[in-house]
């Protein structure tokens, strides 16, 4: 087992197998990474030079001009602010709701447990669909508001059940002894359960934050015409969807000016990187948690 790669004494069939294994994982790594590096290289390359083609993973004429132009001229800063805001608020609210519900559902003595649990679980299988939801949001006068980003999806049954299965693993004796010390159920939740649930909460926080940061369709559906409420993903979507330099679909005249200075291709690549970087920043910190959380959730559901 400990023998090195291709060491003598291994049968040829195992060596061939090893060869296939390392070839495949090398290919997968390249196929996964290359597109990102290619986009990054083009975004950092002079826009007129990029048109000539042939850029792989290194910029040929390095420049930061693409980024400077985009940030100077377009409403991207607003998009960035709204995206960050919805990510922070959506994650915090989502964590509170999921952990509170999970705590109450983990309590075997809770009278409402069966009802709440079934009521929640059903939402994982049946949904009203696009149009009834749209009409509801309209009737609630939430179109054209920031609230539409964080409120409708506040409670996620899946997240509740992942956290609950984690809480189920915490000895109940801890809660009982806190109760003897005179703690009420809320104090137990806040002081005992929450600190012990951190790994599960970190996983769910990652899912919530990534979900918030990555969503674009709610902006498209409800706030597409509200310039002060559009998100980064939505701006990127508009740029990518427009195959011509026709500026109608872009945020005001600003993007037209950007397009006049640097090619649409460079604009797309640079915005793609801007949208992806925050994910890359949080990714390594949370990676150790999500594998655990994912396995837990998958086994439970």
């Amino acid at each position, binding site marked *: 087992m400990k023998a090195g790669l291709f060491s003598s004494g291994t049968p040829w069939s*195992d060596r061939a197998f090893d060869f296939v294994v*390392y070839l495949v994982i090398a290919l997968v790594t390249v196929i996964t990474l*290359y597109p*990102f590096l290619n986009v990054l290289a083009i975004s950092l390359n002079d826009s007129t030079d990029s048109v000539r083609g042939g850029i792989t993973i290194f910029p040929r004429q390095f420049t930061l001009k693409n980024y400077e132009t985009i940030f100077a001229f377009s409403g991207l800063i607003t998009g960035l602010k709204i995206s960050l805001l919805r990510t922070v608020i959506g994650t915090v609210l989502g964590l509170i709701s999921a952990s509170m519900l999970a705590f109450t559902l983990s309590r075997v003595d809770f*009278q*409402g447990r069966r009802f709440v649990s079934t009521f929640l679980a059903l939402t994982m299988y049946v*949904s009203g669909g696009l149009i*009834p939801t749209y009409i509801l949001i309209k009737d609630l006068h939430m179109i054209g508001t920031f609230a539409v980003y964080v409120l409708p999806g506040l409670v996620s049954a899946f997240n509740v059940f992942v956290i609950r299965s984690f809480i189920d693993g915490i000895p109940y004796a801890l809660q009982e002894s806190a109760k003897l010390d005179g703690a009420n159920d809320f104090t137990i939740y806040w002081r005992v359960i929450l600190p012990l649930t951190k790994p599960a909460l970190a996983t769910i926080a990652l899912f919530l934050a990534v979900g918030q940061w990555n969503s674009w369709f709610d902006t498209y559906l409800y706030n597409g015409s509200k310039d002060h409420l559009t998100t980064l993903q939505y701006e990127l979507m508009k740029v990518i969807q427009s195959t011509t330099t026709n500026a109608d679909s872009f945020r005001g005249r600003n993007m037209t000016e950007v397009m006049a200075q640097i090619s649409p291709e460079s604009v797309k690549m640079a915005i793609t990187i801007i949208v992806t970087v925050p994910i890359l920043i949080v990714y390594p910190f949370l990676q150790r948690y999500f594998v655990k959380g994912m396995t837990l959730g998958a086994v439970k559901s």
Partner: protein
Amino acid sequence: MKAAAPLKPQAAARRKSRFWHTFFQQKYLYLMSIPFVLWVFVFSYLPLWGWTMAFQKFKPKKSFLDQDWAGLQYFRELFHDDQFFQALRNTLAMSVMGLVAGFIIPIVFAILLNEVRIGILKRFVQTISYLPHFVSWVVAAGIVTKMLSTDNGAVNDLLVGLHLISEPIQFSGKGNLFWTIVTASDVWKETGWNTIIYLAAIAGIGPELYEAARVDGASRLQQAWNITLPGIRSTIIVLVIISIGHLVSIGFEKQFLLGNNLVRDYSQTLDLYALNYGLGMGRYSFGTAINIFNSVVSVILLFAANGIFKKITKESII
């Protein structure tokens, strides 16, 4: 429980008072759950009430009782619309392709990854392979479009460079390639992520099995085929069945972002059809009928899949 109440009024009263007694004792538990239950009621259950729209000539300005009833008119319209059948075909085609590729490739990759003996290399490849899962479909679609583009797209460059084709292919305009492009994009984005569950299952296989196989002189390939693959069989079955339940609810995100007018005949899924021909044209009732069709088929598939699952394993996944 309720049925017993009229027979023994005293017992019922006692039970009732005990309920309220516990209710007050558990007031914090109620406070921590009831507000969210109401929340779920509003945002997840009220839209179900909206299904009534499909049976009415729905006008947004009117109240529920003032709407004119239409009976099954919109469903009849739906089943007489060629676009509907096209959308159904596209949905089924892309979900079946996604299902097949989305299972085979991650399983093979997980088994191969499990054979990597150099720990740090294995972790590195895993970390890289999870990454695309976390970028949005907007970003993924942008990247895919760039890679497939006719001017300097990597795929065309590679194919031309290898002399497999003489002219770059305009992938974005080829309807008959659209399903493959969507499936391949999905594989690119989710393969790594989908291996997590299989790697966890593989880790649970007892090392003594491999030990015994080695003593018997089994090669690594034979071990992978005869031990690893059967070892994760039950995991695979569970996941396949869950996926069958979600067969028609593939949504529209990828199709919306990767598609364009040139390939619409192949890119329009049921949800996209509801978006374009229901919501987009203000035909709320018609669009809701599409949503209902979609949900009903989903639930039927889910129960069917669960029934098969029960037969195989005597367990229920719902």
